[in-house]
């Protein structure tokens, strides 16, 4: 069974159709890249998979391990193992990162019928992961993302990914706003999480990110559909020839 199956998905936002019948299948262990010009519906797809309100699914299905994802609340999806790394992670003043991480992890465990992680085990794990991501301990005591740089915010997303151990990670424009060093640290963090049981969907506008996170499959999205799929070489092709050819095709 595929991990994620998106079948003929049609999505509207305020009366305007953004996705016009999108189909995508992702198996365990695979890394898929979704590339496309601005406005092609890449972020809409990621939001609909995560369950963000404001999107109306008019047709099609999203199955996660064969279960209907669209019937679940966002928190249920998270507990099942769906993780969206936000393009713009929000700032939450007054909620320390540490408190947030523990509350979220325990909420997911509770929903899965698992016991709460003991504090010492949790702290040990956070320390290990944050060290590997070059996240200073004092950042964890601050409000979630408050005063964080663009790179720090993205690393904080990767930190959560490492802690929550989701089986599907969707990275929405992880490279936006990052310089090359920040990008490398974040990408190294993501690569460390690649495993046979985990799939990733990397959404990006530029080929650059895919030099660091090398995909198994590349999809080109245009005007709300996947218009072409291929191997990693497709990304390089796009870099050379641009998206224009696909805009015509769509």
């Amino acid at each position, binding site marked *: 069974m595929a991990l994620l199956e998106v079948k003929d998905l049609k999505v509207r936002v305020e009366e305007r159709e953004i996705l016009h019948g999108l189909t995508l299948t992702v198996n365990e262990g695979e890394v898929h890249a979704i590339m496309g010009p601005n406005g092609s519906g890449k972020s809409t797809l990621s939001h609909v998979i995560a369950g963000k309100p404001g999107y109306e699914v008019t047709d099609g299905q999203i199955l996660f391990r064969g279960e209907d994802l669209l019937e679940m609340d*966002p*928190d249920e999806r998270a507990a099942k193992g769906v993780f969206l790394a936000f393009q713009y992670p929000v700032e939450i003043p007054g909620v320390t990162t540490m408190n947030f991480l523990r509350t979220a992890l325990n909420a997911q465990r509770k929903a899965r019928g698992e016991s709460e992680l003991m504090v010492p085990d949790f702290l040990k794990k956070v320390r290990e992961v944050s060290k590997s991501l070059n996240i200073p301990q004092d950042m964890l005591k601050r409000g979630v993302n408050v005063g964080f740089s663009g790179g720090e915010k993205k690393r904080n997303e990767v930190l959560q990914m490492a802690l929550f151990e989701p089986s599907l990670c969707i990275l929405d424009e992880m490279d936006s706003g990052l310089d090359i060093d920040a990008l490398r640290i974040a990408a190294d963090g993501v690569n460390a999480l690649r495993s046979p049981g985990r799939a990733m969907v990397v959404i990006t506008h530029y080929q650059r990110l895919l030099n660091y996170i090398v995909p198994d499959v590349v999809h080109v999205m245009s005007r709300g559909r996947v218009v072409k799929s291929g191997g990693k070489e497709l990304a390089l092709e796009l870099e050379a020839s641009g998206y224009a050819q696909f805009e015509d095709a769509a």
Partner: protein
Amino acid sequence: MNVAVAKTGSGRAVSDLFASAEGRLPGSPDVMAARCEAFETYERLGLPHRRIEEWKYTDLRALVGEVLPLAAVPDATALKRAADAVKAHAIAGARKLVLVDGVFAAELSDVKALASEVGFKTLRETLDKDAGLLKTASTDAVIAVNAALATDGVVLSIADGTQLSAPVQIIHVAIAASASAFTRSQVAIGKGARATIIESFAAAGAAAYQVNDAVIVSIGDDADVAHIRLMDDAADAVNITSQFVTVGANTKLNVFNMTSGAAVSRLQGFITLAGEGSQLSVNGVNLLKKTEHGDTTLVVDHAVPNCVSREIFRAVIDDRAHSVFQGRIIVRPDAQKTDGKMMTRALLLSDEAEADNKPELEIFADDVSCGHGATAGALDDSLLFYLKARGLPEKQAQALLIQAFVGEAIEQIADDTLREHVIGIAERWLERRS
């Protein structure tokens, strides 16, 4: 001229209230004369209503209607019930002074432990000699009726230089239903003293009762004082509290007010900075649900130069509840170099929730830095979605954001035990919500 006898909503004559209470009221003939005068003021004014500017948003005639007769003196059974409420609301390590239905309960209080550091008398004992305690600057009707009918209270005096080794906690417990309790207390804190005074209001099963409390606090120079008030009265109770605070020079005063109960409540605080170089921090949280009405009205009077005042107020309003914040900063003509700031924010958790914010600056000096800000709004959907996408169910995500919202005010409490206690009150309120 014919003068109609003032009647309450239930047809009882207002004057009966005083007549029926008279046997219960302590005081020398002078004190009784002062009480009569105060009651006449109350009779003349009646309960405050919306046409009185200061009470515009809290019309007690509409919300309360009438003042209920005094609660009976608590008997042994009542005191036993009160003991459980005291246990539930006591702050670890604090020395308790307990008032049950407006009567001091020595057997529930830590008078002996307190006596080593604090001069203590009941209002009842003090009023035999001194009618001054019944006098305050304001002629507000609720303060007048308090002066007329106060049955008891605590009178504390903390000598110059005393560093209290434990907080003093005054706990008001309501036992009797459909009755009222009038209390008046005085706290005099000497020069260079360090003290934490906590006031708690709670019910032990009582319903539909009324509390009218007045506290008169004077703080000397070079003191360091925390004044915390935690009001968690029964869901159908009324609590009206008036605080009069005078602050000396180079003193630090940290005030915190929490409202998490009562159908109708009003806290009115009048704080005068009367000595130069003092720092005042006044913070508060209203947690309101159902049809509760919670009013926090603060007047900070910069009477002298070179003082700093900071006010942070947060209201969380659910269902059809109504929160009122009125904050006035007065800067007198001589009070140059005053630095006064006030920030109030309301979080509306339902479409029918209501918040009224009325900040006022009255500045008569020309070299000052004063400002205020007020916001009202719902929880941020983008923050809620982020938390939900990380696995928090809706109510838990809301609770986390609400805690963060009130946290900005609660964080101002310096003492760890007290701060944790207050966070606990907020957490329990949020748990009851979900």
